[in-house]
C-alpha cells in the first residue's frame, strides 16, 4: 500500500507544479480535479476509512471533489464563453520556480515535525503544505476570478489532507457537513462568476475596483 500512497502523493506534488505553470483555465481545472480525486482516496489507502460508512463517505467525497466541483466551474466557463487565460500577476515561469522552491521547503519543513499518523509515508505532510501554499499563491497571483476559485479549491484540498490523515477523530457526518459547505460555497462563487461575466464582460478582478476608500 505504501508504494501506492507514495506514487499518488508524488503525482499530486507534480500536479501542484503543473497548476502553477498552467496558462489556460481548462488545464488548471483538470489538474484540480485530479488533486481532488487523489486526496479523497488517500485516507482509504492509509487504512482509515475501511468501514462501510467510511467507504461510502470516500465515494461521496470523490464524486464531489473530483467531479461535481470541477464540472460546476467548467460549465460556468463554457456557458458564458469566458476567455481561457488565467491572467497571471506573477508570471508563469516565476510561478513555476516558486512552486519548486515551495516543494523543497515543504519537504524540508515536513521532516522536522513529529506527527502521529497511521501511515509511514513521508510525503503526506509536504503534499498537504504544498497544496495549502500553492492554493494561496494562486489566489493572490492571478487576476482571473476562476483561477482564484480554483486556488481556493486547492487550499481546501490541502486542509482535507491534513484533516483526514493526521487526525482520526472527526465523525463522517461532520466531515460531510464541511464538504457540503465547501460545495455550496463554490456553487455560489460559480453563480457570482456568471453574473460578473454578464455585468462587466470579463472575469478579470482588476476590473472590479469601484468600491474603495
Amino acid at each position: 500500500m505504501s508504494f501506492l500512497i507514495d506514487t499518488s502523493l508524488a503525482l499530486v506534488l507534480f500536479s501542484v507544479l503543473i497548476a502553477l505553470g498552467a496558462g489556460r483555465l481548462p488545464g488548471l481545472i483538470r489538474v484540480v480535479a485530479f488533486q481532488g480525486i487523489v486526496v479523497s482516496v488517500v485516507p482509504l489507502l492509509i487504512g482509515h476509512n475501511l468501514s462501510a460508512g467510511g467507504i461510502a463517505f470516500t465515494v461521496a467525497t470523490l464524486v464531489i471533489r473530483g467531479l461535481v466541483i470541477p464540472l460546476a466551474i467548467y460549465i460556468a466557463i463554457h456557458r458564458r464563453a469566458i476567455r481561457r487565460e488565467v491572467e497571471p500577476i506573477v508570471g508563469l515561469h516565476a510561478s513555476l520556480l516558486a512552486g519548486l522552491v515551495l516543494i523543497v521547503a515543504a519537504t524540508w519543513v515536513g521532516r522536522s515535525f513529529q506527527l502521529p499518523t497511521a501511515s509511514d509515508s513521508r510525503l503526506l505532510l509536504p503534499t498537504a503544505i504544498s497544496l495549502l501554499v500553492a492554493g494561496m499563491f494562486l489566489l493572490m497571483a492571478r487576476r482571473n476570478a476562476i483561477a482564484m476559485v480554483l486556488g481556493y479549491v486547492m487550499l481546501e484540498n490541502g486542509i482535507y489532507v491534513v484533516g483526514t490523515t493526521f487526525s482520526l477523530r472527526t465523525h463522517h457526518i461532520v466531515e460531510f457537513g464541511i464538504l457540503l459547505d465547501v460545495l455550496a460555497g463554490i456553487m455560489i462563487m460559480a453563480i457570482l462568476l456568471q453574473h460578473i461575466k454578464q455585468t462587466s464582460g470579463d472575469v478579470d478582478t482588476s476590473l472590479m475596483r469601484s468600491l474603495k476608500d
Partner: protein
Amino acid sequence: MLELVILIPLVTGAAAFALPQRFGRALLVLTGVTHLAASIYVWAARPDALFGAYFAISPEGLLSLLVISLLFMVISIYTTGYLETHPLAGEKVFCASMLLFLATMSMVTISDHIMVMWIAIEATTLASAPLIYAHRSAESLEATWKYVLICSVGIALALLGSVLITISMEVGKVDAPVSFSALTAHATKLDEIWLKAAFVFIVVGYGTKMGLAPMHTWLPDAHSEAPAPASALLSGVLLNCAYLGLFKTHALMQAAGLGHFSGTVLMALGLTSILVAATFIMRQQEYKRLLAYSSVENMGIIALGTGIGGLGAYGAMLCLIHHSLIKSSLFLSSGNILLGYGSRLIKKTGNLAGRMPKTCLAFVGGFVGISGFPPFGLFLGELFIIVAAFRTGHPIVGGVFVFSLCVIFGGFARHVMRLVYGPAAADQNEPIPEKATMFWPQYVLLSVSVLLCFWMPKTLYETIAAAVGYTGGGF
C-alpha cells in the same frame, strides 16, 4: 429540544422558497416572534440538546442567541415597511435568505463541536451572500464577490486551525470528544505548540469574519451595499457569531495555560482595528461606510477587552450586546436616509432634522450611544475596558484606546452634524414621509440599550459572569 432554534427558521426559510412571494414578509415576522419565544424558552429552561455530541448550551452562546433573536424580531418588522417602500426584484430569495441566515446564526450560538462551529460559521457566509447581492447592481456584485471569497478563504484557515486543535489532541494523547466543553476540561494535556499554531490560524480565520483589521477589507463594502435590514443583521449579529468562535478558542487557550499568548494577540489585533477604523472614519464620505468602519472599531474594542480579561472581558460582553442593539438601529436609520435622499454620500444629504425628524431622533440617539456616552450601555462596557487596561498594567494600551475613542468621536460627530443640520440641496427641503414601522424598531432597540444600562436582570448578569468566568481574571 435545543435544536428548535435552528429548526424553526430552517423550516420557514424553506417555506419562503416554496411559497409565492407574497407570503415572505408574513413569514419573516412570524418567524421573528416564534424564534424569540423559543430563545426565551431556551434561556429559561436550558433544555438538553438532542445531538449532545454537537450542540450544547454555553453562557456566551445563550447571550448571543437572545441578542440575535431579539434583533431579528425587531428587524423583521422594519423589513416589512422597507419592502413596501422599496420593493426588491428578488424579494422571495431575500426573505428566504434572511430566514436561513437566522438558522445558521442560531446554529453558531449552540454549537459545541469545534468542526460543527466551523460549519455553522461558513454557512452564515453562504446564507448571507444573496442578501448583499439583493440590489443586483455592479457594485453589490463586487461587494458580494469580495465577501464570499475573502471570508471563505479566511474561514478555510480557521478550519485548518480547528484541524490543528485535533492534532494537538493526538500529540497530547487526549481521549475526549472534539468539543469546546470537553476539551476545556482536558486543556492542560493538549500539546502547546500545536495549540498555539491552531490559535493563530483561528484568529486569522474568524478574525476575518469578525472584521478585525487588517483582515476587514470586505466589511465596509458588504455592509454598505446590502439593503438596510441585511446590513443591520450583518453588523449587529453576524460579527458576534464569528466573535463567539474566537472567544471559545480563547477560553480553551486560557484553560490550557496559554491565555497570556492568546490575550496578547487579541489585544494587538483589537488595538490595530481601532486605529485603522479611526483613520478611515475621519475621511469617510459615505454614511453607510462610516457605520461599517464603526463596526470594525467596536469589534476591535471587544477583542481588546477580551484580550485584557477579567473586568475587561466583562466590559467586552457588555459592548457585544450594546453594539448589536445600537449599531443595528443605526443601520436601519441609514436605510431610511438612503430611501429618502437617494444617495449614500454624506454631502448629498443634509437637514435631516427638518426633513425626517423621527429618523433623525433615532439616528442621533444611535450616534450618542455608539460614541460611548451614557445613558446607553456601551458607555459602561468601554469604561470597564479602560479601567481594566490600566489596572492590569497596560497604561499605553489604555492611553491609545482612549485617544482613538476621542478621534473617532470627533470624526463621527463632524459627519453626523453635516447630515443632521447641514444644508440640503436647494430643491430638497420638503419633509419626507416616514412610516411607523420604519422608526419604531430603532426606538425599541435604543430603549433596550438604555434600559440594560440602568437595570440589568440578575439572570443576565449571572450569565455574563459565567461566560467571562472561563477567561479568568477577577473583577
